[in-house]
């Protein structure tokens, strides 16, 4: 819209000055330079794909692709016969930790969003919004510290008396929930607020109470935006590294006991990259194979989220 209106305004000029003046040559050079800057983002994507794929292909020349995708034991750093490259425990650990985070963040985040969008006075909004932004801005290493030194010993072992290991899925999952709660709350708030007020007024006019209006009219109308928010939050939790590295522990666990130690894909990559492992060894190449797996998973989730956002924009515009 903006670009076309400026293009229209700039359109007649070259006709008046006729031909390529030094001025219009300069203009084209500037435009070309700006385009090159915009291409850096494309180069980033290409770079990510190339860096992942090159070494992943090298990895699969040494490890069978079926062994990787279907194997149930992930011990690439073990010695000799104990070495095993089945990625399923890492994938299930990633999904399990994400699910724990969502269990915390979805009800609390949606509750916060509904309050913000439908109940909060403008003054309350001015206080609550910055607090959520503050929470969203806390670095994940700080949440990891909080999980390890507070959630596990004080909340889980102390207040609730749960016998968890020092590194456990429950504490990491709760911290992941704190991480994505502001994401859910902020995006769902946007979705709810974009529902036109005529829908609310119509429902009130038919005699509905406020909870009915919110739950049966506004919430369904905002559903695709809310789903997009949840998918984006899930993709944040799937790719989170440091919380799991610090609080989740280092065992690729195929089980579902939240008191045990779990690892996700990102934390495995970080742990392996820190160790003294020879580059080009098959152990080191796992970084790229697992990185590719993680990248593909988040890419799929993001595509789903964009699709939902599109649907949601079409409804009221």
């Amino acid at each position, binding site marked *: 819209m903006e*670009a076309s209106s400026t293009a229209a305004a700039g359109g007649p000029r070259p006709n008046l000055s006729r031909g390529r003046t030094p001025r219009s040559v300069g203009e084209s050079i500037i435009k070309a330079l700006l385009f090159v800057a915009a291409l850096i983002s494309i180069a980033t994507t290409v770079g990510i794909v190339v860096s992942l794929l090159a070494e992943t292909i090298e990895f699969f020349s040494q490890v069978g692709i079926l062994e990787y995708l279907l194997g149930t034991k992930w011990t690439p750093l073990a010695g000799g016969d104990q070495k095993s490259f089945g990625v399923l425990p890492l994938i299930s650990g990633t999904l399990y930790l994400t699910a724990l985070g969502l269990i915390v963040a979805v009800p*609390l985040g949606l*509750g916060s969003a509904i309050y913000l969008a439908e109940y909060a006075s403008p003054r309350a909004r001015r206080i609550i919004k910055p607090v959520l932004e503050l929470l969203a801005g806390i*670095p994940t290493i700080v949440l990891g*510290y909080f999980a390890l030194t507070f959630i596990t010993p004080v909340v889980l072992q102390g207040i609730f008396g749960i016998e968890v290991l020092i590194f456990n899925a429950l504490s990491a999952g709760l911290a992941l929930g704190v991480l994505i709660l502001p994401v859910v709350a902020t995006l769902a708030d946007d979705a709810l607020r974009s529902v036109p007020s005529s829908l609310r007024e119509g429902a009130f006019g038919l005699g509905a109470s406020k909870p009915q209006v919110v739950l049966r009219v506004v919430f369904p109308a905002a559903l695709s935006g809310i789903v997009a928010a949840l998918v984006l939050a899930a993709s944040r939790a799937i790719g*989170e*590294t440091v919380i799991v590295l610090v609080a989740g522990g280092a065992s690729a666990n195929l089980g579902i006991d939240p008191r045990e130690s779990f690892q996700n894909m990102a934390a495995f990559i970080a742990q392996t990259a820190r160790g003294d492992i020879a580059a080009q060894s098959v152990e080191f190449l796992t970084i790229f194979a697992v990185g590719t797996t993680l990248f593909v998973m988040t890419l799929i989730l*993001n595509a789903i989220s964009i699709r939902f956002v599109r649907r949601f924009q079409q409804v009221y515009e």
Partner: protein
Amino acid sequence: MSVAEAPAARAVVRGSSSGARLREILFPAALLLCIGFAMLTLVVLLVDVAVDGIPVLSGEFITGFPSQIFPERSGIQSALVGTLLLMAVCAVFIVPVGTATAIYLEEYADNNRWWNRLIEVNIQNLAAVPSIVYGILGLAFLVRGPLELGRVVLAGALTLGLLVLPVVIIVGREAIRAVPSSIREGSMALGATQWQTIWKQVLPGALPGIATGVILALSRAIGETAPLIVVGAASFARFNPNDLTSDPFSALPIQILAWVQDPQDEFRALAAGAILVLLFLLLLMNAGAIYLRNRFEQKW
């Protein structure tokens, strides 16, 4: 019949309406609990870190170098210097590239061209790529591979820059879009070229918004740990990097991680102290962003 039914009907209406009234009170109360929980978590987190970290804060903590043996003599100088260098180089990279991309997409790009739409979708996608994957990119292309910079500040800063570039672009575009087209048309009507219009009219108007985006991006970058782990930042740097392209470097999040993972409580306390320094830097940056927004915000 109708007379006999009337009170009963009224009773039903009254019963449902008192139930509804109860629901009208309980529902927002439950919602408020959700927000209360989020706020409480933030408060507990900050108090927990402050209680653990304030005792270790001192002049020597800021100026000392990390030690793996003596917690009482450990400090964060090399990590703090590393973080400040990373932020400076990152800013030098993202300000021109991010602003140029935002200008291109808002002022020049014709959305009917497939490559322009590709750039847009691509930026959306990049914003959702996990930060550890950027670390892999940095390791493969900057530390090793074609550029072969090694495990140095420049490689770390560029990796962080690529990671937060979408933030600068997205916020920058909004700021540019907020400049009304009447300003552009007025400038062009007076004979300015398109670039003169952008440089002299649009950019000054969008500057506070762009600056806010850059600060937001840097406050995301300053807390990032995962990409720096993969790029190979040092956990215990005993000296500051002398330049950007040859010495090993550390950063606050990396130093915090190393101390958090130490089983000794004395070192955990050092982690809390370093977290306080990190949060203080974040607070400064956000205060700067709020100041910019309030001081220079233009009403068109």
